[in-house]
C-alpha cells in the first residue's frame, strides 16, 4: 500500500475524530463507575445491570423492537411492490408522478411527515399507540426500501421470469420462485435499512406515539431533559451497536450481491466471447 503523507493522515484523523469522538466518549462513560457523568471513577458494567432493572426503559425497548420489526417488514413488502411496478410497468399515464411521489418522502422534512400523519390519525379518530407508530414508520421507510430494491430490479433479466411462466408457473409463483430469491440480497438490505431507520427515529415517533406507547428514542430524549445519567449512556451504547450491526450487515449484503452479479456477468461474457 502507498504510504500516506502527514497531511492525509492528519485530515483523516481529524475527520474521523469529528464523526466519532462524541460516540466514543459516550461509550467510554457508559462503563464509568461514578454516578457523575463527567467524573471518571474506574471501569464498571453496573449501569448495564441497572438498565435491566428499569421497567420503563425495558417497556420502551420492547415497543421499539415491535415497531421496528413490524414497520420494516410492512415497508419491505410495500416498497418491493412499488419497485416492481416502477421498474416493470414501462410507460403508463402518470408514471413520472407516481415515481416522484414514491421518492418524495425521502426529501420531505420529518416534521412535516410527522405532523401530517398526526392530523390524519386525529381526523380518522384513531387512538395513537404502537399501531400508529408502525403505520408512520412504514410510510417513511417504504420509499427507502423501494429505492434499494428498484436499483437491483433494473439489472434483473426479465426473461428469467418469462422462462418461469413458460415452464408452468403462475405469475405469482414465478415471482416467488425466481425473482424473489435472486433479488433477495437487495430485499434484505432494504429491510435492515428500514429497521435501522425505525429504531432511531425520534421526530415522527413523537408525533404519532400516544401515552400508551413510548419508543426508546422518545424515552431517552425525555430522560435527558432531566439530566444525563450513566444509564442513558449504557442504553445508547447498546443502540449504537445494534445500528452498527444493521448498517454493516446491509453493506456486506449489498457488496456480496454486487460481487456475485459481477461474477455471473463475467462468466456470461466469457461464454459469449
Amino acid at each position, binding site marked *: 500500500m502507498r504510504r500516506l503523507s502527514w497531511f492525509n493522515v492528519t485530515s483523516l484523523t481529524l475527520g474521523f475524530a469529528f464523526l466519532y469522538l462524541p460516540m466514543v466518549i459516550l461509550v467510554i462513560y457508559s462503563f464509568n463507575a461514578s454516578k457523575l457523568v463527567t467524573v471518571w471513577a474506574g471501569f464498571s458494567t453496573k449501569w448495564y445491570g441497572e438498565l435491566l432493572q428499569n421497567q420503563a426503559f425495558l417497556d420502551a425497548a420492547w415497543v421499539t423492537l415491535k415497531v421496528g420489526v413490524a414497520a420494516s417488514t410492512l415497508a419491505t413488502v410495500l416498497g418491493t411492490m412499488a419497485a416492481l411496478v416502477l421498474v416493470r410497468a414501462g410507460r403508463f399515464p402518470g408514471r413520472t408522478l407516481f415515481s416522484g411521489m414514491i421518492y418524495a418522502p425521502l426529501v420531505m422534512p420529518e416534521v412535516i411527515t410527522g405532523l401530517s400523519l398526526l392530523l390524519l390519525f386525529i381526523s380518522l379518530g384513531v387512538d395513537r399507540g404502537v399501531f400508529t407508530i408502525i403505520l408512520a414508520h412504514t410510510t417513511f421507510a417504504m420509499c427507502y426500501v423501494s429505492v434499494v430494491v428498484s436499483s437491483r430490479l433494473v439489472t434483473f433479466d426479465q426473461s428469467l421470469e418469462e422462462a418461469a411462466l413458460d*415452464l408452468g408457473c403462475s405469475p405469482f409463483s414465478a415471482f416467488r420462485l425466481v425473482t424473489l430469491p435472486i433479488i433477495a440480497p437487495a430485499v434484505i438490505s432494504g429491510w435492515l435499512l428500514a429497521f435501522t431507520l425505525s429504531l432511531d427515529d425520534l421526530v415522527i415517533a413523537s408525533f404519532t406515539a400516544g401515552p400508551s406507547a413510548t419508543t426508546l428514542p422518545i424515552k431517552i430524549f425525555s430522560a435527558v431533559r432531566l439530566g444525563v445519567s450513566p444509564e442513558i449512556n449504557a442504553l445508547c451504547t447498546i443502540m449504537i451497536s445494534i445500528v452498527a450491526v444493521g448498517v454493516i450487515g446491509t453493506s456486506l449484503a449489498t457488496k456480496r450481491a454486487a460481487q456475485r452479479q459481477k461474477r455471473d456477468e463475467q462468466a456470461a461474457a466469457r461464454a459469449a466471447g
Partner: protein
Amino acid sequence: MAVPVFAPWDDPTQKPLIQFKGVTKRFGDFTAIDNQTLDIYTREFFALLGPSGCGKTTMMRMLAGFEQPTEGQILIGGKDMKGVPPNEREVNMMFQSYALFPHLSVWENIAFGLRRMNQSKDVLEARVEEMLRLTRLTKFAKRKPHQISGGQRQRVALARSLARAPKLLLLDEPLGALDKKLREETQFELMDIQEKTGTTFVIVTHDQEEAMTVASRIAVMDEGRVIQVATPSNIYEAPNSVYVADFIGDVNIIEGAAKRAGDGYDITWAEGVAPLHTRKEEGELIAIPDGGKAYLAIRPEKVAIHTEKPQGMTNAVQGRIIDVAYLGNLSTYHVRLANGTMVRAQTANTRRLALRPFTWEDEVWLSWTDTAAILLAE
C-alpha cells in the same frame, strides 16, 4: 423400397399443428408482424429466417403467449390461443439468452418445469436423469449455471425446455452464442433430438446455412412479412423473389425485359447481344407480360467459364475477369460483362493451381443451361 417422404404440407388430409390466420402485431404505431398467414405441421423442424429486426422473435413470443396478436388468430392443435397464458400452453421456449435460473443447479433448472406438473418424485427424477443423459450433462448436474461453459449452458436450456415434453418447442437463435465448430455439432445434435423426441420444433435464426441444415421447411421473412415458405432445396433452387434468392446463398441477378419465346422466355438484357433464354416445366413458369421487367437469378456454381465461345449454348456471354477469390476447394471468378453487369462463376478446384487456365484480366466466356436460371418478376 421407397422411403416415405416427410411432406405433410403437401397432404391436404393433414391438419396443421400451428395456424397463423391473418395475424398482425403492432407495437404502438409500428407494425412488427403484418397480416401473417402460416401453417406449421406436427413433427416439423420449421425455421424462421430473416435479418435482425424482421419480427422473428415476435412470432415466437406470440406462440409462447408472451405477446397477443393485435389482429387475427393463432391456433395450436386447432384451438384458438387467444387469452391463454404462457403457463397453460403446451409450448416451451428456449430463450435467446438461455435464461437459466442462476440460483438453481443444473439439475434443479431441468426439474423446474416438471415440479409444476404434480408428478410423483420418482417420475420426476427419472425424467430429469433422462434429460441429463439426452443432453450429455449428467456429470454437471450439481453445478450452477455460472460454473459451466457456454455450450453446456445451451444444452441445459434445451434440456429444461424439453423436459415437460411439449407439443411444440420454440428455439430463439439457440446457437447464436456458440462458435462455428460447436454450432455445427449442435445443429446435428438438435436434429437428432428432434427426431428422437418427435417434438415439433420452430427455430429462429439469421444464419441461412443453419436453416438449410436443420429445417424441414424455411420461412424467409422481411420486415414483418413471410416472403416464401418452402423446403430448403426449393428455397435454394426455386426462390420466388430476388429478395429470397439473394438472402439464401450467392446469386447473380441479371435485369432485362421478358418476352414469351417457345417453351420459355427470352430476356433482352443489353444492346447488341443475343437475348438470354430460360425455360421451365409448364405450370412452373411465372406469367410476365411481353416486354415486362424481369430478373434472371443464376447461382454462381451453375455458371461455366470458358476461354473460347462455347458451341451450342443458348446462354453465353462475354466478359473480363476482374477478381479471383480462391477458397481452397473452390474458386470464384468475378467477371464484368460489356454493359458493366458483374457475374460470378464458381468452379471446383480439381486441378493444381498452376494448371488452371484463367487469371486476372483474361477475356472469358460464361455460359449456363436453359434451366439453370430462374426467372423472377420481383
